[in-house]
């Protein structure tokens, strides 16, 4: 059997820069022969660039389920392209700005001929950093396009400041933790990165975002500093929020600094009653939080009782407040180590990402039943799902991915000597993480 032709779906709201990126894909010399399917029906040239236009015919299947809508025009075009597969290396499929990516993606699962010949490698969503905020509330399409993405090109970043960009990243990250976010202006992202997403490679996706499977904490960042006894300081600029919580915490043994482990301890302290502090105040290491007034640029004192290692856990990332730690001599001190945590849900978006991890082998029958029930009941709410599963008596990883109620699985790399565990990601509306996690655990062999 010949290898399947990889397909990248390019989506994004009107004016987000899809055409700019598409033109770059077509004009830059990357050594790949690319067939492009655009969003208006047209002609396939015989010898010239293969740019095919589609007609956006969304078809429901006979069972009437909206999850099984497909693009009839794409089936025809792709089946035609299957006869010309020696002419190109991959396909880029552009959707209209208002298109729901669901039917486009589902086409690659529903139609046998398409599934046999083509491999949906990834979905790239372009987001207009300047204007996307205004669409968050009133456009289901924008939410869906972000939720479906394997990669998000945050375009037009030159039109927003760092704080806005950071906030946008956080919000997009909340919607879709799985996607890699690439800031760009004029869609100037490396073409190779866009085309080689490795959409099904969950390990790789996890590698992109270390915070992916971590629990959500009320802090987004932690830095470990070596500080000397005396009056150090913490400089913070005026930020998007009027105040910010933080904890300064002493670390007794520097050799054992593992920030994610420390986070569990600090998380418990976070619930303690905080102390408000302003420009004239001083904080010191302790196990309760401080709330720093940030309505203006602030430099607060940090009283360090003795030379040693100290951690700062902050509610927001240091970039949002231009955080600088200064030593006793007033010089800037750099962290020995730092770590970014997954942002908590600070917005009311109903679209979320849920990551599940389960150590041990899953029973295949229980797993099938679980997935079957889950997809029947929650399918309409699930935009994307991906997973690498450890199934009992199976030496290889089971790699699965799906769209709404449709999913496909294939054997992955052998487990070998590695610890066997399963990891799944669901992106969808109103997903119940606890329920998903508890019911997945019932599938353990």
């Amino acid at each position, binding site marked *: 059997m010949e290898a399947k032709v990889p397909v990248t779906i390019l989506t994004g709201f009107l004016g987000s820069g899809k055409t700019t990126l598409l033109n770059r894909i077509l004009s830059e010399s990357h050594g790949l022969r690319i067939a492009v399917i655009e969003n208006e029906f047209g002609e396939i040239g*015989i010898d010239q660039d293969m740019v095919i236009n589609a007609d956006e015919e969304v078809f429901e299947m006979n069972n009437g389920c909206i999850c099984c809508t497909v693009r009839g025009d794409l089936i025809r075009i792709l089946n035609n392209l299957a006869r010309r597969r020696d002419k190109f290396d991959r396909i880029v499929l552009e959707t209209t700005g208002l298109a729901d990516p669901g039917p486009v993606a589902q086409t690659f699962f529903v139609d046998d001929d398409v599934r046999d010949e083509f491999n949906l490698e990834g979905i790239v969503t372009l987001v207009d950093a300047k204007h996307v905020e205004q669409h968050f509330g009133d456009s289901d399409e924008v939410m869906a396009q972000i939720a479906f993405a394997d990669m998000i090109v945050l375009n037009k970043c030159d039109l927003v400041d760092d704080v806005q960009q950071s906030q946008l990243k956080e919000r997009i990250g909340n919607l879709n933790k799985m996607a890699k976010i690439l800031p760009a202006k004029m869609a100037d992202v490396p073409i190779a990165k866009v085309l080689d997403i490795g959409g099904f490679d969950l390990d790789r996706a996890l590698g992109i975002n270390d915070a992916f499977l971590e629990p959500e904490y009320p802090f987004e960042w932690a830095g470990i500093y070596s500080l000397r006894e005396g009056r150090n300081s913490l400089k913070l600029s005026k930020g998007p929020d009027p105040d910010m919580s933080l904890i300064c915490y002493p670390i007794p043994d520097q050799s054992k600094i593992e920030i994610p482990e420390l986070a569990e301890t600090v998380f418990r302290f976070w619930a303690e009653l905080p102390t408000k502090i302003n420009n004239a105040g001083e904080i010191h290491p302790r196990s309760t939080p401080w709330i720093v007034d940030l309505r203006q640029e602030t430099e607060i004192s940090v009283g360090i009782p003795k030379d040693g290692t100290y951690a700062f856990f902050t509610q927001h990332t240091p970039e949002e407040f231009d955080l600088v730690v200064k030593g006793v001599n007033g010089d800037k001190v750099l962290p020995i180590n730092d770590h970014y945590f997954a942002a908590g849900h600070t917005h009311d978006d109903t679209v979320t990402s849920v990551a599940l991890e389960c150590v041990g082998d899953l029973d295949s029958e229980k797993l099938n039943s679980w997935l079957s029930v889950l997809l029947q009941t929650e399918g309409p709410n699930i935009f994307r799902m991906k997973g690498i599963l450890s199934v009992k008596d199976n030496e290889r990883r089971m790699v699965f991915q799906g769209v709404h109620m449709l999913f496909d699985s294939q054997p992955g790399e052998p487990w070998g000597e590695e610890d066997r565990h399963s990891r799944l990601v669901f992106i969808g509306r109103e997903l119940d993480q606890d329920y998903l996690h508890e019911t997945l655990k019932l599938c353990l062999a």
Partner: protein
Amino acid sequence: MDGIQKLWSFFETDLAEAPVALDWSACGRWLSVINVDSSVLVVDTLNNTELERWTAHDDGALALTWHPKLSIFATGCQGGVVKLWQVEEDQTINEVSAIKLAPSSGNSWIELLKWSPDGKHLSIGNGNSVMLSTIMGEMSTSFSFPNGTVAAIDWHPRGSLLAIAGYGGVLIYNVLKPKEKPIVLERKGSLLSLSWSPDGKYILAGCQDNAVALWRFRTRKDAQMSGFTYKPLQLTWINRGKRLLTGGTKELVIWPFDKKGPEGRDPEMRSFHEHAICAIAATASGQVIASGCRFGRIAIWESAGDSEPKSWAELDSRVEHLLWSPAKKSKTLAATSRQGTLSLFDASGII
């Protein structure tokens, strides 16, 4: 297929591109194949020579069909052009006419070409409509299919009724009364292939959701045949319309259409293939069948009885088209493969 005689091709040629359509002339002498790059090959099977190869269109090709009586065939492409070609008495091939159609709903692809049984009309599937052309290439009437792109067309065996299938069902127009509203046969989902039974009593459609939709034309009563693994696009009538042979699985399924029809009756199964069937052809009598699978294996068998295949043949890749010669007494089978090979087999020694 151990122990069964293998059939070797007596004619084979490299098409250089993947074929998109294959058809015999009515007399069974000429065989035409059009490829994805619009290159056309006409083979003279009287002496098994290539009559001519040429590029028929500037765009990718999608369809080819021979006239049911004359030595004329039509080709259609993605640029909205239909051309009529004639094999002259001196064996030269000339372009008779070229029709450039205006895009229908933004779609200019000519995906379907089908002559009416009397040969007076060429029906042309073009986006959301089917247009009719005369043998001279003059456009006459247009019939719309509002639900989307026309996926299949078929003529009533006696001529004037034209069935059009696509998303949402079938519309049946009377070409003699083009202003009349069409008969509507609704079905949820997308219909992909269409076949009117030889007696005109049934209309069948292969569906995207792995089923065959069925209507009794007189009563409009509908039914469904399901259980297919893949899309059952192949709808082949055998035994003068008394039985229907379908693809869409590894098994060949033969449905009874004699007496009161297939409802409540078990179909017959033939398990000759290890992979999904993607092409089926029956001789004019419907007694000899060729079936081909996705991995290039062709089985040749008789519709009567349930014995093993009489012979088998093998192509270099997925079987794209199978078609028996319509010439009387001929047992020549034409086959194309996805990789671009045209092969002719002579089954006269075995059936």
